[in-house]
């Protein structure tokens, strides 16, 4: 399973971002979220959201094998084993693998908790099979 985004429905409200930080770090801080929001204004007008596809490329290159799969089949970062080497970051084609030591002493990524989908009022975010055509 993975997260999907329908950009045409995204209102850019960032509820997903703050909610993600609550899940990952137990903090209210969108700068510590595992999704990326890119505004496109004034032309053409709209938001572009980057989400984890759970491709696992980050896990493949992690030298300490800190990126593991959880019970949902999603890759997550085991903080105890992350050495902040950043090898995972350039591997991520969606730019949603994060290392920023100002914010956290671990890498972080989407663990498919699903809270972002719960708070998305416009139903732009959804969870589906990895090869599914998004709704």
């Amino acid at each position, binding site marked *: 399973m993975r997260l999907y985004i329908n950009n045409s429905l995204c209102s850019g*409200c960032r509820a997903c971002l703050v909610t993600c930080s*609550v899940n990952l770090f137990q903090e*209210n*801080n969108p700068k510590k979220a595992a999704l990326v929001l890119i505004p496109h204004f004034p032309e053409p*007008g709209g938001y572009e959201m980057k989400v984890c596809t759970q491709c696992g490329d980050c896990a493949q290159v992690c030298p300490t094998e800190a990126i593991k799969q959880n019970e949902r089949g999603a890759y997550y970062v085991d903080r105890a084993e992350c050495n902040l080497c950043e090898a995972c970051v350039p591997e991520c084609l969606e730019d949603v693998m994060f290392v920023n030591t100002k914010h956290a002493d671990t890498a972080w990524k989407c663990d498919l908790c699903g809270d972002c989908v719960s708070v998305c009022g416009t139903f732009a975010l959804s969870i589906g099979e990895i090869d599914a055509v998004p709704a």
Partner: protein
Amino acid sequence: MNGYGGSILRVNLTEGRITRTPTSPGLARDYIGGRGFGIYTLYHEVPKGADPLGPENKLIISTGPFAGTMVPGGGKCDWTTKSPLTGGYADASMGGHFTAELRYAGLDSIILEGISPKPVYLFIDDDTVELRDAAPYWGKGVFDVEDEFKKKYGEEFQIAAIGPGGENRVLYACVNHDIGRQAGRGGVGAVMGSKQVKAIVLHGTKSIPVADVAGLRTASLALFKACKEAEMTRDWTRYGTNIVSSWCDEVGALPTHNFQAGSYEGAKTLSGPVMREQLVVMDKGCFACPCPCGKYSRLKKYKSHLEGPEYETVGLFGANLGISDLQDVGECNRLCDEYGIDAISAGVCVGWAMECYERGLLTKADCDGLELKWGNVEAVHATIRKIAFREGKLGELLAQGTKKAAETVGGGSEKFAIHVKGMEQSAYATHSATAMLLAYMTGDVGAHHNRSWAITYDLQVGRDKVVPEKVARIIWLQDFRPMFETLGCCRLQWVELGIDRDLYMPALDAIVGGAHTWKEMEHIGARIWNLTRLYWAREIEGFDRSWDMPSPRFYSEPPKSGATQGQITRLEDVNKLLDIYYEQRGWDANGLPTPETLKNLQLDQVVL
């Protein structure tokens, strides 16, 4: 302190001195945040009789514990000041993403004081706080300024800026943010302009401390669930605030030809569905909003974009001026936003000027060659520019607001200057809606609808009835509705979706700790309400019940057409409404809180 950024940023512009002080736990307990912090600071720090556009006045930007957290709609701040438009209390509530960013910078309030010797912008990036040279931005419209700052500093920065309207101290100039969000009313942009502050450019990366993050998650998920499952969510999100224009037309609440009537023959083409089909590109949300009413729109006719138009603009630049094409109205909205003037006050001012023109009280020469006839779109667009730049006789006249403009022109035009306390009435015609009329009469900034909105209640109880239940409803709304913004979040999830307000209190408990109730919030709301009243009494010599009177139009000129044709509120009923209101508020016959009322609200130590 849980639930608070922890600091109040004080910017002395005269001396270029910036200080941070810890947010007072007592202030947080007694006033929560937002406009509560605003009126407390205004009352105690700005001396009696201060010139609203002088160095003694302050601009206080405050938010509350919900802002920037997982609570839905937690993106509201209040901009409080002594109003240059009314001479009394003003606060303007702003949505968007600025407020959340303020909290991530560790701040609960920014207080701008003094006057900068040169144009500056306030730059905040976490603990880096500086006044920077705004010369390259001065004179520019807000869209360009926001775009330039985003390019310079990055998309994560949030910007609140004034346009030429604020620079030129148009008395109802606003502050603009994120394309289409404004701190709109009362002239907060003029105050910012008087201080020579072009913009606040803001970025923060800190987390907001909360007492119980797991509890906050649970409470917030329950709130989001309620919002998403509410019956109204789909249509509200689809049409935004303009969902209401057709209904207003049907019930005679759509301001038409300067509030001469409440129904408009061209209303069909101004409706929410028409707007959605013809203009809207996408829904654009304020922070953490599950039901975004913001609409990013494209105007093919003008090859322009805007966020909006909102219902208020549709009412006041549409029906109120006899304009039935949403693209024309949208361009009015865009011009007001770009120039940084409040579209509500501007629409009412232009409506008043058009009626003056139609009645011969203003000539073509008085209007700098413009023919201000109903429906003359080009003249309206030109007038908006004139106001923002104070160009010509017409621009100077209308930049003062309707009350002063009518005093200047005279000739009976005071009778159709649609304002209370000098603030132009927002877009609900109140010939026959006594609760809504009272809401406007007693609004603590003037004739604005956001404190209490009661037209559906009028229809439910009987629109011309003057009964204590109506007054009690208005007082309850006035005490309670503004508490959403005081807490730092939008009220529209409760107002429009009708979700259970009790769902918010577990979130507040989890954020600040302890146990809270709406009853307690209403008590604090009443405290804030009464303190704003004391402020009016302190600042306006001879302040009395005459300041609560509506435009005479609503008790002397029954509409000649539309749903409220022939209907009017009698003057004796207007006075009766006030009598009941004062009695229920615990105020005397002149509308001032009695010593006992002040004591009950712990305001008895406040010195007038």
